[in-house]
Protein backbone atom coordinates (compact mmCIF):
# COMPACT_ATOMS: atom_id res chain seq x y z
CA UNK A 1 0.00 0.00 0.00
CA UNK A 2 1.36 3.39 -0.98
CA UNK A 3 1.35 6.43 1.17
CA UNK A 4 -1.35 9.04 0.57
CA UNK A 5 0.09 11.78 2.78
CA UNK A 6 3.80 12.50 3.00
CA UNK A 7 5.11 15.42 5.01
CA UNK A 8 8.82 16.16 5.13
CA UNK A 9 10.19 18.92 7.33
CA UNK A 10 6.97 20.90 7.17
CA UNK A 11 6.92 24.15 9.11
CA UNK A 12 4.25 26.79 9.42
CA UNK A 13 4.48 30.24 10.97
CA UNK A 14 1.81 32.62 12.15
CA UNK A 15 3.79 35.81 12.26
CA UNK A 16 6.76 34.89 14.42
CA UNK A 17 4.92 32.04 16.13
CA UNK A 18 5.99 28.64 14.86
CA UNK A 19 2.81 26.56 14.72
CA UNK A 20 4.44 23.59 13.03
CA UNK A 21 8.08 22.80 13.54
CA UNK A 22 9.77 20.51 11.06
CA UNK A 23 7.02 17.90 10.95
CA UNK A 24 7.60 14.53 9.26
CA UNK A 25 4.60 12.30 8.80
CA UNK A 26 3.62 9.51 6.46
CA UNK A 27 0.08 8.17 6.29
CA UNK A 28 -0.66 5.06 4.23
CA UNK A 29 -3.83 4.34 2.38
CA UNK A 30 -6.54 3.05 4.71
CA UNK A 31 -4.64 4.03 7.81
CA UNK A 32 -6.33 5.72 10.78
CA UNK A 33 -4.14 8.20 12.58
CA UNK A 34 -5.19 9.93 15.77
CA UNK A 35 -3.43 13.18 16.60
CA UNK A 36 -3.50 14.35 20.19
CA UNK A 37 -1.72 16.85 22.36
CA UNK A 38 -2.38 19.91 24.48
CA UNK A 39 -4.15 22.92 22.96
CA UNK A 40 -1.90 25.12 20.89
CA UNK A 41 0.32 22.19 20.02
CA UNK A 42 -0.29 22.48 16.27
CA UNK A 43 -2.69 19.56 15.81
CA UNK A 44 -5.30 21.63 14.01
CA UNK A 45 -2.69 23.42 11.94
CA UNK A 46 -1.39 20.03 10.83
CA UNK A 47 -4.73 18.90 9.37
CA UNK A 48 -5.48 22.38 8.05
CA UNK A 49 -2.24 22.31 6.09
CA UNK A 50 -3.15 18.93 4.59
CA UNK A 51 -6.57 20.25 3.58
CA UNK A 52 -5.01 23.44 2.17
CA UNK A 53 -6.90 25.76 4.51
CA UNK A 54 -3.45 26.86 5.61
CA UNK A 55 -0.38 27.09 3.45
CA UNK A 56 2.81 25.64 4.84
CA UNK A 57 5.94 27.77 4.78
CA UNK A 58 8.72 25.20 4.66
CA UNK A 59 9.22 21.57 3.72
CA UNK A 60 7.39 19.37 1.26
CA UNK A 61 3.86 18.13 1.54
CA UNK A 62 2.62 15.46 -0.82
CA UNK A 63 -1.02 14.41 -0.84
CA UNK A 64 -2.39 11.69 -3.14
CA UNK A 65 0.67 11.93 -5.32
CA UNK A 66 0.54 15.70 -5.84
CA UNK A 67 3.21 17.85 -4.28
CA UNK A 68 1.36 20.77 -2.75
CA UNK A 69 2.92 24.12 -3.43
CA UNK A 70 1.21 27.29 -2.43
CA UNK A 71 -0.35 28.13 -5.75
CA UNK A 72 -3.98 27.48 -6.45
CA UNK A 73 -3.42 24.80 -9.05
CA UNK A 74 -2.20 22.15 -6.66
CA UNK A 75 -4.98 22.90 -4.20
CA UNK A 76 -7.43 22.22 -6.96
CA UNK A 77 -5.74 18.92 -7.80
CA UNK A 78 -6.63 17.48 -4.41
CA UNK A 79 -9.84 19.39 -3.85
CA UNK A 80 -12.81 17.18 -3.02
CA UNK A 81 -10.51 14.17 -2.63
CA UNK A 82 -9.56 15.41 0.81
CA UNK A 83 -12.58 16.22 2.94
CA UNK A 84 -12.69 17.85 6.31
CA UNK A 85 -14.99 17.85 9.33
CA UNK A 86 -14.77 20.84 11.64
CA UNK A 87 -15.16 21.31 15.36
CA UNK A 88 -17.92 23.87 14.80
CA UNK A 89 -19.64 21.77 12.07
CA UNK A 90 -19.73 24.79 9.71
CA UNK A 91 -22.95 23.70 8.07
CA UNK A 92 -24.55 26.28 5.80
CA UNK A 93 -27.38 27.66 7.94
CA UNK A 94 -29.43 29.08 5.07
CA UNK A 95 -29.68 25.71 3.27
CA UNK A 96 -31.63 22.61 4.23
CA UNK A 97 -29.71 19.50 5.27
CA UNK A 98 -30.23 18.06 1.80
CA UNK A 99 -29.05 21.22 0.05
CA UNK A 100 -25.97 21.24 2.28
CA UNK A 101 -25.19 17.74 1.05
CA UNK A 102 -25.73 18.24 -2.68
CA UNK A 103 -24.01 21.63 -3.01
CA UNK A 104 -20.51 20.18 -3.35
CA UNK A 105 -21.42 17.26 -5.63
CA UNK A 106 -23.51 19.41 -8.02
CA UNK A 107 -21.30 22.50 -8.15
CA UNK A 108 -17.80 21.13 -7.64
CA UNK A 109 -18.08 17.61 -9.09
CA UNK A 110 -20.70 18.44 -11.72
CA UNK A 111 -23.11 15.67 -10.76
CA UNK A 112 -26.73 15.97 -11.85
CA UNK A 113 -29.16 16.99 -9.15
CA UNK A 114 -30.76 13.57 -9.19
CA UNK A 115 -27.49 11.69 -8.77
CA UNK A 116 -26.43 14.08 -6.03
CA UNK A 117 -29.74 13.54 -4.21
CA UNK A 118 -29.38 9.76 -4.44
CA UNK A 119 -25.93 10.06 -2.98
CA UNK A 120 -27.10 12.45 -0.27
CA UNK A 121 -29.89 10.10 0.87
CA UNK A 122 -27.47 7.21 0.93
CA UNK A 123 -25.06 9.01 3.23
CA UNK A 124 -27.85 10.38 5.41
CA UNK A 125 -28.88 6.75 5.99
CA UNK A 126 -25.27 6.00 6.83
CA UNK A 127 -25.14 8.66 9.53
CA UNK A 128 -28.62 7.57 10.64
CA UNK A 129 -30.62 10.78 10.18
CA UNK A 130 -32.56 10.40 6.91
CA UNK A 131 -35.66 11.87 8.58
CA UNK A 132 -33.95 15.27 9.02
CA UNK A 133 -33.30 15.80 5.31
CA UNK A 134 -35.56 18.81 4.81
CA UNK A 135 -34.78 20.69 8.01
CA UNK A 136 -32.49 23.65 8.40
CA UNK A 137 -29.32 22.75 10.34
CA UNK A 138 -30.23 25.19 13.12
CA UNK A 139 -33.11 22.93 14.16
CA UNK A 140 -30.88 19.91 14.75
CA UNK A 141 -28.96 18.98 17.88
CA UNK A 142 -25.20 19.40 17.89
CA UNK A 143 -24.65 15.67 17.43
CA UNK A 144 -27.03 15.59 14.49
CA UNK A 145 -25.38 18.63 12.93
CA UNK A 146 -21.98 17.01 13.16
CA UNK A 147 -23.32 13.85 11.55
CA UNK A 148 -24.76 15.94 8.74
CA UNK A 149 -21.33 17.57 8.38
CA UNK A 150 -19.76 14.12 8.11
CA UNK A 151 -22.34 13.12 5.50
CA UNK A 152 -21.62 16.32 3.60
CA UNK A 153 -17.93 15.46 3.53
CA UNK A 154 -18.69 11.88 2.44
CA UNK A 155 -20.90 13.05 -0.43
CA UNK A 156 -17.76 14.12 -2.27
CA UNK A 157 -16.51 10.52 -2.00
CA UNK A 158 -13.14 11.64 -0.68
CA UNK A 159 -10.09 9.45 -0.41
CA UNK A 160 -8.93 11.03 2.82
CA UNK A 161 -11.06 12.33 5.66
CA UNK A 162 -9.67 14.84 8.12
CA UNK A 163 -11.39 15.47 11.45
CA UNK A 164 -10.52 18.56 13.46
CA UNK A 165 -11.74 17.89 17.00
CA UNK A 166 -15.12 16.64 15.75
CA UNK A 167 -16.61 16.15 19.22
CA UNK A 168 -15.10 19.04 21.17
CA UNK A 169 -18.09 21.34 20.68
CA UNK A 170 -20.65 18.70 21.61
CA UNK A 171 -22.58 18.04 24.77
CA UNK A 172 -21.24 14.87 26.45
CA UNK A 173 -24.31 12.74 25.65
CA UNK A 174 -23.94 13.46 21.93
CA UNK A 175 -20.30 12.52 21.62
CA UNK A 176 -21.02 8.80 21.34
CA UNK A 177 -23.39 9.09 18.37
CA UNK A 178 -20.78 11.04 16.40
CA UNK A 179 -17.90 8.76 17.37
CA UNK A 180 -19.96 5.71 16.33
CA UNK A 181 -20.36 7.16 12.86
CA UNK A 182 -16.63 7.84 12.61
CA UNK A 183 -15.86 4.33 13.90
CA UNK A 184 -18.11 2.85 11.18
CA UNK A 185 -16.19 4.80 8.59
CA UNK A 186 -12.93 3.57 10.04
CA UNK A 187 -14.09 -0.03 9.71
CA UNK A 188 -14.89 0.51 6.04
CA UNK A 189 -11.27 1.34 5.35
CA UNK A 190 -11.39 5.12 4.92
CA UNK A 191 -8.04 6.85 5.35
CA UNK A 192 -8.46 9.17 8.31
CA UNK A 193 -6.51 11.70 10.31
CA UNK A 194 -8.44 12.54 13.46
CA UNK A 195 -7.51 15.30 15.87
CA UNK A 196 -9.26 14.43 19.11
CA UNK A 197 -9.09 14.29 22.87
CA UNK A 198 -11.26 11.16 22.92
CA UNK A 199 -8.73 8.61 24.05
CA UNK A 200 -11.32 5.84 24.05
CA UNK A 201 -11.77 6.43 20.35
CA UNK A 202 -8.02 6.37 19.79
CA UNK A 203 -7.81 3.02 21.56
CA UNK A 204 -10.60 1.50 19.49
CA UNK A 205 -9.99 2.91 16.04
CA UNK A 206 -6.45 4.18 15.63
CA UNK A 207 -3.69 2.32 13.85
CA UNK A 208 -1.30 4.91 15.18
CA UNK A 209 -1.33 7.72 17.72
CA UNK A 210 0.67 10.86 17.21
CA UNK A 211 1.44 13.10 20.14
CA UNK A 212 2.26 16.72 19.40
CA UNK A 213 3.48 19.58 21.51
CA UNK A 214 4.72 23.04 20.53
CA UNK A 215 4.40 22.30 16.84
CA UNK A 216 6.47 19.14 16.92
CA UNK A 217 5.63 15.47 16.75
CA UNK A 218 7.05 14.13 20.01
CA UNK A 219 5.85 10.58 19.75
CA UNK A 220 4.41 8.15 17.22
CA UNK A 221 3.18 4.88 18.58
CA UNK A 222 0.58 2.17 18.24
CA UNK A 223 -2.29 2.86 20.66
CA UNK A 224 -1.66 0.01 23.11
CA UNK A 225 1.95 1.06 23.59
CA UNK A 226 1.11 4.74 23.70
CA UNK A 227 -1.35 4.29 26.53
CA UNK A 228 0.64 1.66 28.44
CA UNK A 229 4.06 3.19 28.33
CA UNK A 230 4.32 6.57 26.64
CA UNK A 231 7.87 7.35 25.61
CA UNK A 232 8.29 10.97 26.59
CA UNK A 233 7.77 12.79 29.85
CA UNK A 234 5.49 15.25 28.07
CA UNK A 235 3.14 12.56 26.75
CA UNK A 236 3.08 10.84 30.16
CA UNK A 237 2.00 14.08 31.75
CA UNK A 238 -0.59 14.69 29.04
CA UNK A 239 -2.09 11.21 29.37
CA UNK A 240 -2.23 11.62 33.14
CA UNK A 241 -4.24 14.76 32.74
CA UNK A 242 -6.57 13.44 30.06
CA UNK A 243 -7.21 9.99 31.48
CA UNK A 244 -7.55 10.74 35.18
CA UNK A 245 -10.72 12.73 34.93
Amino acid at each position, binding site marked *: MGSVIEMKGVSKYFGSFKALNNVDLIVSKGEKVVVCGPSGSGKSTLVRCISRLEKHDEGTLEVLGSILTNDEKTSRAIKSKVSMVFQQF*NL*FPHLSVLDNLILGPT*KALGLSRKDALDRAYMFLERVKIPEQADK*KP*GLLSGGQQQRVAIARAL*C*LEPEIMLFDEPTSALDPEMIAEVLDVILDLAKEGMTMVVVTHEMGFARKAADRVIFMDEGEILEENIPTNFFKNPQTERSKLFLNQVLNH
Partner: protein
Amino acid sequence: MNFCIRLFIVSIFLLLAGCSGESGNWGWYVIDPSTKSGWINIKFLVGGFGATILVSLLAAFISIILGLIVALPSLSSSWILRSCNRIYVEFIRAIPLLPMLFWVFYGLPVILKSLGLQVEIDAFWGAVITLAVSDSAFTAEIYRAGIQSIAKGQREAAQTIGLSYFQSMRYVIFPQALRRILPPLANQFIYIVKMSAFASVIGMQELTRRANEIVVTEYRPLEIYTLLIFEYLVLVLLISFGVRWLEKKLGSNESNMN
Protein backbone atom coordinates in the same frame (compact mmCIF):
# COMPACT_ATOMS: atom_id res chain seq x y z
CA MET B 1 -42.28 61.41 23.69
CA ASN B 2 -45.61 62.67 24.98
CA PHE B 3 -44.44 66.15 24.24
CA CYS B 4 -43.58 65.20 20.67
CA ILE B 5 -47.03 63.78 20.08
CA ARG B 6 -48.67 66.92 21.44
CA LEU B 7 -46.45 69.09 19.30
CA PHE B 8 -47.39 67.00 16.29
CA ILE B 9 -51.12 67.33 17.01
CA VAL B 10 -50.82 71.08 17.54
CA SER B 11 -48.96 71.51 14.27
CA ILE B 12 -51.52 69.44 12.36
CA PHE B 13 -54.22 71.62 13.91
CA LEU B 14 -52.39 74.76 12.84
CA LEU B 15 -52.04 73.39 9.33
CA LEU B 16 -55.75 72.61 9.15
CA ALA B 17 -56.57 76.03 10.53
CA GLY B 18 -54.49 77.43 7.71
CA CYS B 19 -56.48 75.35 5.25
CA SER B 20 -59.67 77.10 6.23
CA GLY B 21 -58.18 80.06 4.46
CA GLU B 22 -59.53 82.66 6.89
CA SER B 23 -56.20 83.63 8.45
CA GLY B 24 -53.97 85.76 6.30
CA ASN B 25 -50.81 83.71 6.88
CA TRP B 26 -51.76 80.69 4.90
CA GLY B 27 -52.72 80.53 1.29
CA TRP B 28 -53.69 77.00 0.55
CA TYR B 29 -55.67 78.21 -2.43
CA VAL B 30 -52.53 77.71 -4.55
CA ILE B 31 -53.02 73.98 -4.31
CA ASP B 32 -56.74 73.82 -3.65
CA PRO B 33 -58.00 71.14 -6.04
CA SER B 34 -61.51 72.65 -6.06
CA THR B 35 -60.27 75.71 -7.94
CA LYS B 36 -59.07 75.47 -11.49
CA SER B 37 -55.67 77.08 -10.97
CA GLY B 38 -55.10 75.10 -7.76
CA TRP B 39 -55.85 71.86 -9.61
CA ILE B 40 -53.45 72.76 -12.40
CA ASN B 41 -50.75 73.55 -9.84
CA ILE B 42 -51.28 70.26 -8.02
CA LYS B 43 -51.11 68.28 -11.24
CA PHE B 44 -47.88 70.03 -12.14
CA LEU B 45 -46.30 69.42 -8.72
CA VAL B 46 -47.34 65.79 -8.43
CA GLY B 47 -46.20 65.24 -12.01
CA GLY B 48 -42.65 65.34 -10.66
CA PHE B 49 -43.06 61.97 -8.97
CA GLY B 50 -42.32 60.09 -12.17
CA ALA B 51 -38.92 61.70 -12.71
CA THR B 52 -37.90 61.47 -9.04
CA ILE B 53 -38.84 57.80 -8.89
CA LEU B 54 -37.20 56.95 -12.20
CA VAL B 55 -33.92 58.71 -11.35
CA SER B 56 -33.83 57.12 -7.90
CA LEU B 57 -34.59 53.63 -9.12
CA LEU B 58 -32.01 53.78 -11.90
CA ALA B 59 -29.36 55.28 -9.62
CA ALA B 60 -30.06 52.72 -6.89
CA PHE B 61 -29.91 49.86 -9.39
CA ILE B 62 -26.58 50.99 -10.81
CA SER B 63 -25.22 51.69 -7.35
CA ILE B 64 -26.12 48.20 -6.12
CA ILE B 65 -24.17 46.60 -8.97
CA LEU B 66 -21.31 49.10 -8.95
CA GLY B 67 -21.04 48.82 -5.17
CA LEU B 68 -20.60 45.06 -5.38
CA ILE B 69 -17.92 45.39 -8.04
CA VAL B 70 -16.13 47.93 -5.86
CA ALA B 71 -16.53 45.80 -2.72
CA LEU B 72 -15.08 42.53 -4.05
CA PRO B 73 -11.44 43.72 -4.25
CA SER B 74 -11.64 44.78 -0.59
CA LEU B 75 -12.05 41.11 0.35
CA SER B 76 -9.00 40.02 -1.60
CA SER B 77 -5.75 38.96 0.01
CA SER B 78 -3.77 41.11 -2.41
CA TRP B 79 -2.94 44.52 -0.97
CA ILE B 80 -2.97 46.09 -4.43
CA LEU B 81 -6.59 45.16 -4.98
CA ARG B 82 -7.48 46.19 -1.46
CA SER B 83 -5.93 49.60 -1.92
CA CYS B 84 -7.79 50.10 -5.23
CA ASN B 85 -10.96 49.65 -3.25
CA ARG B 86 -9.80 51.98 -0.45
CA ILE B 87 -8.82 54.75 -2.85
CA TYR B 88 -12.14 54.58 -4.69
CA VAL B 89 -14.18 54.57 -1.49
CA GLU B 90 -12.24 57.34 0.26
CA PHE B 91 -12.16 59.54 -2.83
CA ILE B 92 -15.78 59.20 -3.93
CA ARG B 93 -17.06 59.39 -0.37
CA ALA B 94 -15.28 62.69 0.14
CA ILE B 95 -16.98 64.51 -2.75
CA PRO B 96 -20.13 66.43 -1.78
CA LEU B 97 -23.05 65.59 -4.00
CA LEU B 98 -23.63 69.05 -5.45
CA PRO B 99 -20.07 69.66 -6.68
CA MET B 100 -20.03 66.17 -8.13
CA LEU B 101 -23.29 66.88 -9.92
CA PHE B 102 -21.83 70.06 -11.42
CA TRP B 103 -18.67 68.22 -12.40
CA VAL B 104 -20.58 65.44 -14.15
CA PHE B 105 -23.07 67.77 -15.83
CA TYR B 106 -20.72 70.54 -16.95
CA GLY B 107 -17.29 68.90 -16.80
CA LEU B 108 -17.65 65.34 -17.96
CA PRO B 109 -18.91 66.23 -21.48
CA VAL B 110 -15.79 68.36 -21.95
CA ILE B 111 -13.54 65.44 -21.05
CA LEU B 112 -15.50 63.08 -23.27
CA LYS B 113 -15.33 65.59 -26.10
CA SER B 114 -11.56 65.90 -25.78
CA LEU B 115 -11.44 62.12 -26.08
CA GLY B 116 -13.35 62.41 -29.32
CA LEU B 117 -16.65 61.20 -27.89
CA GLN B 118 -19.64 63.36 -28.71
CA VAL B 119 -21.83 62.44 -25.77
CA GLU B 120 -24.56 64.70 -24.49
CA ILE B 121 -25.21 64.34 -20.81
CA ASP B 122 -28.65 65.71 -20.09
CA ALA B 123 -29.94 66.59 -16.64
CA PHE B 124 -31.56 63.20 -16.22
CA TRP B 125 -28.45 61.11 -16.92
CA GLY B 126 -26.24 63.61 -15.13
CA ALA B 127 -28.33 63.03 -12.02
CA VAL B 128 -28.40 59.25 -12.44
CA ILE B 129 -24.63 59.00 -12.89
CA THR B 130 -23.86 61.31 -9.99
CA LEU B 131 -26.25 59.67 -7.56
CA ALA B 132 -25.14 56.17 -8.54
CA VAL B 133 -21.41 56.84 -8.33
CA SER B 134 -21.65 58.86 -5.15
CA ASP B 135 -23.76 56.19 -3.50
CA SER B 136 -21.63 53.27 -4.73
CA ALA B 137 -18.87 54.13 -2.25
CA PHE B 138 -21.37 53.65 0.56
CA THR B 139 -22.96 50.50 -0.84
CA ALA B 140 -19.48 49.04 -1.31
CA GLU B 141 -18.79 49.51 2.40
CA ILE B 142 -22.13 47.92 3.25
CA TYR B 143 -21.32 44.87 1.10
CA ARG B 144 -17.87 44.58 2.61
CA ALA B 145 -19.17 44.70 6.18
CA GLY B 146 -21.97 42.24 5.39
CA ILE B 147 -19.71 39.73 3.70
CA GLN B 148 -17.01 40.01 6.35
CA SER B 149 -19.60 39.41 9.07
CA ILE B 150 -20.15 35.85 7.81
CA ALA B 151 -18.06 33.47 9.90
CA LYS B 152 -14.74 32.37 8.42
CA GLY B 153 -15.76 28.73 8.91
CA GLN B 154 -18.38 29.11 6.19
CA ARG B 155 -15.76 30.00 3.59
CA GLU B 156 -13.54 27.18 4.80
CA ALA B 157 -16.36 24.66 4.65
CA ALA B 158 -17.20 25.82 1.13
CA GLN B 159 -13.55 25.41 0.17
CA THR B 160 -13.32 21.89 1.60
CA ILE B 161 -16.33 20.73 -0.40
CA GLY B 162 -14.51 21.86 -3.50
CA LEU B 163 -16.28 25.13 -4.35
CA SER B 164 -14.36 27.81 -6.21
CA TYR B 165 -14.14 31.36 -4.88
CA PHE B 166 -17.08 32.56 -6.94
CA GLN B 167 -19.14 29.49 -6.20
CA SER B 168 -18.67 29.90 -2.46
CA MET B 169 -19.60 33.57 -2.76
CA ARG B 170 -22.62 32.79 -4.87
CA TYR B 171 -24.04 29.84 -2.92
CA VAL B 172 -22.71 30.20 0.61
CA ILE B 173 -21.56 33.66 1.62
CA PHE B 174 -23.80 36.00 -0.33
CA PRO B 175 -27.18 34.46 0.51
CA GLN B 176 -26.28 34.73 4.19
CA ALA B 177 -24.86 38.23 3.92
CA LEU B 178 -27.91 39.48 2.03
CA ARG B 179 -30.08 39.46 5.11
CA ARG B 180 -27.63 41.68 6.95
CA ILE B 181 -27.02 43.91 3.94
CA LEU B 182 -30.63 44.63 3.16
CA PRO B 183 -31.54 47.09 5.94
CA PRO B 184 -28.56 49.42 5.40
CA LEU B 185 -29.05 49.12 1.64
CA ALA B 186 -32.62 50.33 2.09
CA ASN B 187 -31.25 53.30 4.01
CA GLN B 188 -29.09 54.13 1.03
CA PHE B 189 -32.06 53.93 -1.29
CA ILE B 190 -33.90 56.45 0.88
CA TYR B 191 -30.80 58.61 0.80
CA ILE B 192 -30.80 58.50 -3.01
CA VAL B 193 -34.47 59.49 -3.21
CA LYS B 194 -33.81 62.51 -1.02
CA MET B 195 -30.58 63.50 -2.72
CA SER B 196 -32.28 63.38 -6.10
CA ALA B 197 -33.68 66.78 -5.12
CA PHE B 198 -30.28 68.21 -6.07
CA ALA B 199 -31.03 67.38 -9.68
CA SER B 200 -33.38 70.37 -9.62
CA VAL B 201 -30.31 72.59 -9.76
CA ILE B 202 -29.31 71.35 -13.19
CA GLY B 203 -32.85 71.71 -14.42
CA MET B 204 -34.34 68.26 -14.12
CA GLN B 205 -38.12 68.38 -13.86
CA GLU B 206 -38.49 66.38 -10.67
CA LEU B 207 -40.47 67.13 -7.51
CA THR B 208 -38.24 69.88 -6.12
CA ARG B 209 -37.70 71.65 -9.43
CA ARG B 210 -41.42 71.79 -10.06
CA ALA B 211 -42.07 73.10 -6.55
CA ASN B 212 -39.48 75.84 -7.12
CA GLU B 213 -41.12 76.84 -10.39
CA ILE B 214 -44.57 77.18 -8.82
CA VAL B 215 -43.09 79.09 -5.87
CA VAL B 216 -41.58 81.58 -8.27
CA THR B 217 -44.87 82.22 -10.03
CA GLU B 218 -47.24 82.04 -7.05
CA TYR B 219 -45.10 83.45 -4.19
CA ARG B 220 -46.47 80.86 -1.81
CA PRO B 221 -43.30 79.07 -0.62
CA LEU B 222 -44.70 77.84 2.69
CA GLU B 223 -47.63 75.91 1.26
CA ILE B 224 -45.78 74.52 -1.72
CA TYR B 225 -42.68 73.41 0.17
CA THR B 226 -44.91 71.85 2.82
CA LEU B 227 -46.57 69.81 0.12
CA LEU B 228 -43.12 68.98 -1.27
CA ILE B 229 -42.00 67.63 2.09
CA PHE B 230 -45.05 65.42 2.28
CA GLU B 231 -44.42 64.18 -1.25
CA TYR B 232 -40.99 62.92 -0.16
CA LEU B 233 -42.47 61.52 3.02
CA VAL B 234 -44.90 59.41 1.02
CA LEU B 235 -42.07 58.07 -1.17
CA VAL B 236 -39.84 57.23 1.77
CA LEU B 237 -42.64 55.57 3.72
CA LEU B 238 -43.46 53.43 0.70
CA ILE B 239 -39.84 52.29 0.52
CA SER B 240 -39.82 51.56 4.26
CA PHE B 241 -42.90 49.39 4.03
CA GLY B 242 -41.55 47.61 0.99
CA VAL B 243 -38.28 46.82 2.72
CA ARG B 244 -40.02 45.65 5.91
CA TRP B 245 -42.03 43.26 3.80
CA LEU B 246 -38.94 42.01 2.00
CA GLU B 247 -37.05 41.56 5.26
CA LYS B 248 -39.87 39.58 6.74
CA LYS B 249 -40.00 37.38 3.69
CA LEU B 250 -36.28 36.68 3.80
CA GLY B 251 -36.37 36.39 7.59
CA SER B 252 -39.07 33.75 7.65
CA ASN B 253 -37.05 31.72 5.20
CA GLU B 254 -34.02 31.84 7.40
CA SER B 255 -35.48 32.10 10.87
CA ASN B 256 -33.74 28.83 11.67
CA MET B 257 -30.35 30.34 11.12
CA ASN B 258 -28.16 30.31 14.16
